[in-house]
């Protein structure tokens, strides 16, 4: 009996001690460790954690009770071991909450689940029917379906979410971002529930900061810089000049009644104000019947810079002088309590790269801000936070002059922002953990306070102090939007999806390799479908360099190269991100908010590679084509003598081989690549296109042909079943993505976001291909093309019908939505080309108009 008991006890002990270690590992993770441990690791750990807690369903407290049970029924020998163990490993503090419900989906839900599980808090995921198999549901401890796919009926449906909170017994709710995160009504309803905490600011704070005009007024009162301006009746041009002088030049003048940017005039000096005043006045009276004129400081090329903050009040037992409190546990009854608002301000984030107010690239810290300006900004932020008694995480957004000299309050976001990871990367602080502790009334975690509050700092110093940080982090938002099709959302399954590794080496020629940390916050995995119901965000890709900005940029660029996203029925914006990263002005940090309008006035046509890069691509293409052929085709198959086999192999491996690489298919730009005997030194020669061969003058052509450049390839690792090839070209290590060959051997290579179709041909093939006719470009003006991939449901017209503009032509179903395609012109239907019931791909011809009547309006447009 004794023996048996002992064995059982030993078993129990080992399992429980393992559990303790695990807990400890997570609890004691210092900021530094959080940063250096890979995202994957955190992932696995949190998953493992989730499994443990769900399978055992206990908190450490109950583990302790388990110990006691064993204790009472076992030998003194084992008692000794157990007691030492208990001395060494302090039990972690109890979890802040019993159950955390995340009122969100996608990557942010996963992000919150990760931290919650690390803190031993079980989680509840809510989801719509279409999300029932998504990652946030899989990783949460439990999940509740709250409605149909449409977000107004599910994630935005307050009643359903509140029901989910009640039915699961969650005692905390994290709203994430978007959806209900800045809805004061939702926060209020949660506050009114018994013992449920809202992980965010109070409803009053949300309301105060939610209204743009009101928040500006509050900010001004709190001593925050707001854009100087005037809004009222002016009597004379002189008065206008006076106001303009007070506001400071340049100023923007417009009729106050006019909305938006309408009738906006910018004046750089007094004379311009005098000239503009009558125009403005006349406009105000004539068009808006409102004499008031609006004058505001005009900020040219402003930067969008924001301060992340974490504020929390805590019942404390010491004086509220900012001296840290050492006792991490809830204080005992009877002690004197102080309510103290603690505020941590994090280094600023620059989010100026925006497209139609949608941020694309965010980084921290900004290159623009001087320490003095930053300190001033932080002082004002703290003042604002105290004014509205703001708790939890929040962000104050500013517009900053492009010389960094001055800043103006824009608005305050009362939620955890999309771009919070950049702040986490450079400071090592887990903002979600901060939100959890603050909401639980524990205040800001002590180790985070310790980062800032050190002995010997004066109050004045502390006020403008930022959380210490090192290095530089950049985040790119990866959207399922096709920049080549005017950023149309792409919806469909992710056929291939591979995230970049958590740590990558970057190298530039002649310098030693440096490491970059990569964090990917994603909410999807391979095979899953991006639907049109929600935000098309695939993931957030964050690159962190402990050294400087340029390395963080290089790291992000390489991470983009390593990020495999295929499918979706369309493109994604990785190529656009790459192109922005390649812009010299971005690399300089010259990034005003109109960066994209300035650099892409006519939209985006894909990354354009330089001459050298094209040569490198052709060399890589030649090698990949050759290698793929080798791996697949050798040894030669049957019926050939051994001698011949050997001959083939030897010849291929040891002789200099010349191939022609056509970039962009058979009729694209051709390069002749001589693969050296050592398989390392390549000679690349640009071949002149066939069509222009005769037209161009001879001398010029010779110059071009003579120009041969050398490219060295030190290493190339690629297996045909992989997507990514690692290659060292001219001493620089880079990654390219290689697509699957089509039947004619054409495959695509992606490098620096540019997708290049590669056709590797023998010189003989290339010689003969000059006789081939280039495929004729189909004249689409007379055709109706399918605007999206889908199924042709029906035709509303038949051949020979006369149609008028706007008449329904056919229905194409895509993603369960029936889209009616209407005629954009009047004419006669020539031919119905599609087959009803069959699938159509994007740009497939559905219908042809009779060619006799050519309308002027020839664009067919999609109306739903």
């Amino acid at each position, binding site marked *: 009996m004794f023996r048996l008991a002992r064995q059982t006890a030993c078993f129990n002990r080992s399992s429980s001690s393992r559990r303790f270690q695990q807990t400890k590992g997570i609890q004691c993770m210092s900021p530094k460790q959080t940063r250096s441990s890979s995202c994957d690791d955190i992932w696995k750990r949190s998953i493992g954690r989730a499994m443990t807690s769900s399978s055992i369903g206990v908190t450490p407290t109950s583990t302790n009770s388990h110990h006691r049970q064993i204790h009472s029924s076992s030998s003194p020998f084992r008692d000794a071991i157990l007691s030492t163990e208990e001395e060494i490993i302090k039990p972690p503090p109890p979890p802040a909450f019993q159950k955390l419900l995340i009122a969100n989906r996608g990557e942010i839900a996963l992000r919150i689940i990760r931290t919650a599980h690390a803190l031993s808090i079980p989680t509840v995921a809510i989801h719509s029917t279409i999300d029932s*198999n998504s990652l946030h549901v899989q990783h949460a401890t439990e999940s509740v379906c709250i409605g149909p796919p449409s977000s107004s009926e599910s994630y935005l449906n307050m009643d359903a979410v509140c029901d989910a909170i009640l039915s699961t017994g969650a005692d905390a709710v994290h709203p994430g971002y978007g959806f209900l995160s800045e809805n004061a009504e939702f926060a209020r309803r949660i506050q009114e529930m018994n013992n449920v905490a809202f992980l965010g600011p109070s409803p009053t704070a949300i309301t105060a900061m939610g209204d743009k005009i009101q928040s500006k007024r509050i900010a001004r009162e709190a001593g925050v810089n707001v854009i100087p301006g005037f809004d009222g009746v002016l009597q004379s041009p002189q008065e206008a000049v006076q106001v303009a002088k007070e506001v400071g030049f340049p100023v923007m003048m417009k009729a106050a009644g006019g909305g938006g940017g309408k009738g906006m005039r910018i004046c750089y000096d007094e004379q311009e104000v005098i000239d503009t005043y009558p125009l403005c006045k006349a406009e105000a009276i004539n068009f808006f019947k409102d004499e008031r004129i609006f004058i505001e400081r005009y900020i040219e090329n402003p930067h969008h810079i924001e301060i992340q903050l974490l504020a929390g009040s805590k019942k404390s037992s010491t004086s509220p002088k900012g001296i840290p409190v050492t006792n991490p546990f809830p204080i005992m009854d009877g002690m004197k309590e102080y309510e103290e608002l603690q505020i941590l301000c994090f280094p600023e984030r620059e989010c100026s790269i925006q497209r139609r107010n949608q941020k694309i690239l965010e980084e921290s810290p900004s290159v623009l801000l001087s320490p003095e300006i930053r300190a001033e900004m932080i002082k004002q932020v703290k003042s604002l936070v105290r004014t509205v008694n703001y708790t939890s995480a929040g962000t104050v957004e500013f517009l900053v002059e492009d010389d960094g000299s001055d800043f103006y309050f824009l608005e305050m976001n009362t939620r955890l922002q999309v771009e919070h990871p950049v702040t986490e990367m450079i400071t090592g602080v887990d903002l979600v953990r901060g939100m959890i502790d603050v909401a639980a009334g524990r205040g800001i975690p002590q180790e985070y306070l310790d980062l800032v509050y050190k002995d010997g700092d004066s109050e004045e110093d502390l006020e403008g102090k930022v959380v210490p940080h090192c290095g530089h982090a950049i985040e790119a938002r990866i959207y399922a939007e096709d920049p080549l099709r005017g950023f149309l959302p792409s919806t469909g*399954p*992710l*056929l*291939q*999806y591979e995230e970049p590794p958590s740590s990558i080496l970057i190298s530039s020629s002649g310098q030693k390799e440096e490491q970059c940390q990569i964090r990917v916050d994603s909410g999807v*995995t*391979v*095979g*899953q*479908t991006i639907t049109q119901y929600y935000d098309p965000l695939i993931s957030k890709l964050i690159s962190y360099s402990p050294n400087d900005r340029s390395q963080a940029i290089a790291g992000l660029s390489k991470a983009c190269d390593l990020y495999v996203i295929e*499918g979706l029925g369309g493109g994604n914006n990785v190529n656009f991100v790459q192109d922005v990263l390649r812009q010299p002005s971005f690399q300089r940090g010259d990034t005003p908010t109109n960066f994209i309008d300035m650099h892409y006035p006519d939209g985006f046509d894909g990354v354009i590679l330089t001459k050298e890069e094209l040569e490198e691509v052709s060399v890589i293409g030649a090698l990949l084509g050759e290698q793929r052929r080798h*791996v*697949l*085709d*050798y*040894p*030669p*198959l*049957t*019926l*050939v003598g051994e001698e*011949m*086999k050997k001959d*083939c192999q030897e010849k291929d491996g040891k002789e200099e081989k010349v191939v022609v690489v056509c970039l962009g298919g*058979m009729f694209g730009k051709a390069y002749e690549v001589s693969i050296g005997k050592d398989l390392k030194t390549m000679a690349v020669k640009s071949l002149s296109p066939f069509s222009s061969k005769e037209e161009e003058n001879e001398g010029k052509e010779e110059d071009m042909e003579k120009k041969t450049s050398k490219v060295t390839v030190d290493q190339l690792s690629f*297996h*045909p*079943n992989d997507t990514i090839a690692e290659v060292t070209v001219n001493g620089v290590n880079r990654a390219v993505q290689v697509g*699957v*060959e089509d*039947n*004619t*051997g054409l495959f695509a290579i992606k490098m620096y976001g540019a997708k290049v179709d590669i056709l590797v*041909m*023998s010189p*003989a*093939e290339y010689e*003969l*291909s000059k*006789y*081939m*006719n280039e*495929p*004729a470009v189909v004249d689409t003006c007379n055709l109706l093309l399918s605007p999206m991939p889908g*199924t042709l449901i029906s035709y509303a017209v038949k051949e020979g019908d006369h149609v008028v503009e706007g008449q329904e032509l056919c229905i194409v179903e895509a993603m*369960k939505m029936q889209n009616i395609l209407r005629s954009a012109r009047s004419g006669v239907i020539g031919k119905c080309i599609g087959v009803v*019931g*069959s*699938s159509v791909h994007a740009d497939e011809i559905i219908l042809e108009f009779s060619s006799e009547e050519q309308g002027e309006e020839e664009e067919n447009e999609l109306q739903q």
Partner: protein
Amino acid sequence: IFQATKHLSTSTRTAIENDPSTVKAAFRQRLSQERARALMGGGETRISKQHTRGSLTARERLSLLFDSNTFRELDTLKSHRCTEFGMEHQDTPGDGVVTGHGLVNGRIAYAFSQDFTVLGGSLSETHAQKICKIMDMALRIGAPVIGLNDSGGARIQEGVDSLAGYADVFQRNVDASGVVPQISLVMGPCAGGAVYSPAMTDFLFMVEQSSYMFVTGPDVVRTVTKEEVSKEDLGGTSVHTVKSGVAHGAYANDVAALRAMRKLLDYLPSSNEKSTLPSKPTEDSPLRSCDALKYLVPDDPNTPYDMKHVISSIVDNHDFFEILPNYASNIVTAFARMEGQTVGIVANNPLTLAGCLDIGSSTKAARFVRFCNAFNIPIVTLVDVPGFLPGVGQEHGGIIRHGAKLLFAYAEATVPKVTVITRKAYGGAYDVMSSKHLRGDCNYAWSGAEVAVMGAKGAVEIIFRGKVWLIFLNFDGILF
């Protein structure tokens, strides 16, 4: 050399002329001249005309089809024997077709390539003999035959001899069928009787813009049926790859088409001898886990998805060669590799017509299954089929007869058959799609798959017809 002997006496001259060395030297000279002439085909002007059309000559095509410098030509100088209608003056070495053998990625293959520059590539008695010769050789050693067709048709001057030539080729096509793979690449006009030889080969490909196939041309059509139609609309690539299903694929130009043929040959065995099945070493592990499969097939039985995504996930290197991609796309037929071994894949594609079986898809798949069976290629069947396509058109078109072809093909196939039901298999179509009752070797169903006579809703409507109240009783555990 006879010029140089002019000053000599007649007897000496005769002696020199009859000297074996002189005779042989003359012969050698003539031979090299004839060879040079044969290599030039129809001459410079016709060659450049062919090039301006965007086409290659017969020999250029062969040089691209085979590994460099491996083509060995046969019967280079063989000429026709016709003496009618002035044909005796038409001296044509090679007689409009280039035949021979060579290596395709190291494996031997036989090919003929019709030369449009020589008498329009028309088929004569000797032309046919040359083709028959290499087909016989290919059959003897067991190697594939590739025909590059570019011919104006029968050589009318030869009359029935030419027709006999066609029939000789047809007979070889049939004899070779199921013994060695036969591939036709129609690279130019192909009309009348000429269409049948390519149609009887295993695979037929076309080249866009330059090739068309029809039994009777637009002129005859106009006289007989009064229909006005262009060559392209009557028998161009868009017709045969999409509507008629005659051609198994089309490529943009000659070079692309020949590259594709080389790739296709890599999948095929050289003959029906099992040992000739090609295998290519791959580093794609058979244990590779494929996470995408968890999500690619939607739970909702009515949501379409592209079965090709599933195929590309499960085969080596995501690489497969689709046969007839644009015709009856509710079924996918493709060659691919698994662990380096060629497999034939037959899969319903819910993207079109919900993946159901109709006349087109049944015949398409039946022919593919029979080819695989003949050449020892294992068949992987991916099933997501709601049944046969209902409709008057289908019934009147003989869906019963055509559906039976697929059933027959699967039932007679003795190659390894692996079947995976990805989502649903209903009714008779379940039986047809390589069910285990048709000697399927391994039949799997993915989690969530439904195998039934029909969908639950339809079944309830039939079983509980007129006794709806029983449904409620039944749920309470009361027998009905």
